[in-house]
């Protein structure tokens, strides 16, 4: 097995403010990488640079395409990168409203991604949408309802269905359990873990919640002031943190 994503020297600054600096890591298929740090540590900047939502200042983000060709996505043209965003990549936003189309039905939200990759058969699309609603534990009877009528937890699960329906190979997640009740969080984590194992997708998940990292991530990176200060096996970094800042983070958390 080899990497699906290899990041080297990725940097981004806002004027003289560092967003992220010299970030290097790789991810294999089926692996979950957690990125933690406080607000302003640069974790969301990093995620947005990786996903192409923000233009990086330097470095490389090499992604291995389905045909095995390795490409630096930072130097791809916009059309190619958009195509990647519709097929191999997915991005789950913290606020489901940023990742869903609130004015179209739940089924339409899932179907839209399928149509974007060329699916045209209404019956198939609807059947796939129904099965994905079931997988994310939303009553298929709600298929024609707009997400605006859903609870926050349902919206987040719908966003995940919309993102995973096209079988992406790499999923970026920005605080996916952020605004959810604890009971819903556990359910969502179980769902995500199951899907990652079943589909073998690689996931990069940004969160400030160390419990989420413990339950979901194989490996983790700790960011502070734009730099990665510690990285390793998730449980090792959490149980035996060596960097001063990681020790502060772990000792400040309510039981992880």
């Amino acid at each position: 097995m080899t990497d699906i994503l290899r990041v080297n020297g990725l940097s981004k600054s806002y004027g003289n403010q560092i967003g992220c600096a010299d970030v290097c890591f790789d991810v294999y298929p089926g692996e979950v990488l957690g990125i933690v740090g406080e607000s302003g540590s640069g974790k969301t900047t990093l995620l947005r640079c990786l996903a192409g939502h923000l233009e990086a200042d330097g470095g490389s983000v090499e992604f291995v395409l389905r045909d095995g060709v390795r490409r630096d996505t930072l130097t791809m043209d916009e059309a190619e990168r958009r195509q990647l965003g519709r097929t191999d990549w997915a991005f789950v936003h913290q606020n489901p409203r940023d990742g869903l189309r609130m004015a179209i039905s739940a089924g339409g939200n899932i179907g839209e991604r399928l149509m974007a990759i060329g699916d045209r058969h209404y019956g198939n699309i609807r059947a796939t949408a129904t099965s994905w609603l079931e997988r994310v534990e939303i009553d298929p009877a709600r298929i024609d309802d707009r997400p605006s009528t859903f609870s926050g937890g349902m919206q987040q699960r719908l966003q995940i269905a919309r993102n995973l329906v096209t079988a992406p190979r790499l999923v970026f997640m920005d605080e996916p359990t952020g605004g959810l009740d604890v009971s819903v969080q556990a359910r969502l984590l179980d769902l995500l873990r199951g899907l990652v194992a079943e589909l073998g997708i690689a996931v990069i998940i940004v969160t400030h919640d160390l419990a989420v990292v413990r339950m979901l991530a194989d490996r983790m990176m700790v960011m502070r002031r734009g730099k990665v200060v510690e990285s390793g096996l998730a449980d090792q970094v959490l149980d035996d943190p060596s960097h001063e800042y990681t020790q502060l983070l772990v000792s400040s958390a309510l039981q992880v």
Partner: protein
Amino acid sequence: MLSVSNLEKSFHLHQQNNAHIPVLSGAQFDVAAGECVALTGPSGCGKSSLMRMIYGNYRADSGSIRISGTDVVTATPREVMALRRGTIGYVSQFLRVLPRVPTLRVVAEPYILAGGNEAEAEEIARELLLRLRIPETLWQLSPLTFSGGEQQRVNIVRGFVHPYPVLLLDEPTASLDSANRDSVLDLIVEAKQRGAAVIGIFHDALVRDAVADREIDVSLFGGN
């Protein structure tokens, strides 16, 4: 099967007056296949820390821990993950699992992660749950709702569901009644018979005498 050499470990607590706490120094021992070694010594002497280092959960400062060709001390996270999937089983003192996941799935999971098929995993899991007297009515519930003793037995089943060549057992019988304790002892003996190298912390002398071939006094590796 397992070889620990010159192992050193200390904690450096930046947030607590930069305290430097030595844990182990010069730890050295081997464990053969089919052998059970008991780690002994007073509380706080580093038994659990040593076990966690073997599992790759704590870092070592120097030295080596060799398990089937891999040195855990210098291994990459992915190499440690691979060892944990197929080679090292670890029964910790506390059950840590996702809420909401049914017991049967929780205990079958390590077998599937090790590459086994789901039907087989479930069959072995059922058999072990029965042996450790977890009533079938509980199997579809999350073990997080169980009593302490039941949680410990669920943890034990997770550690024995796949035939790991190396088993780390941290107080596996601490909160069990005598019938369940005897069942766990049987499991340990069976694991030794199939050739597993077992390292255990057993405060109960009766348990220790029943399964351990040898004792290693961890306080002799005191960090000071």
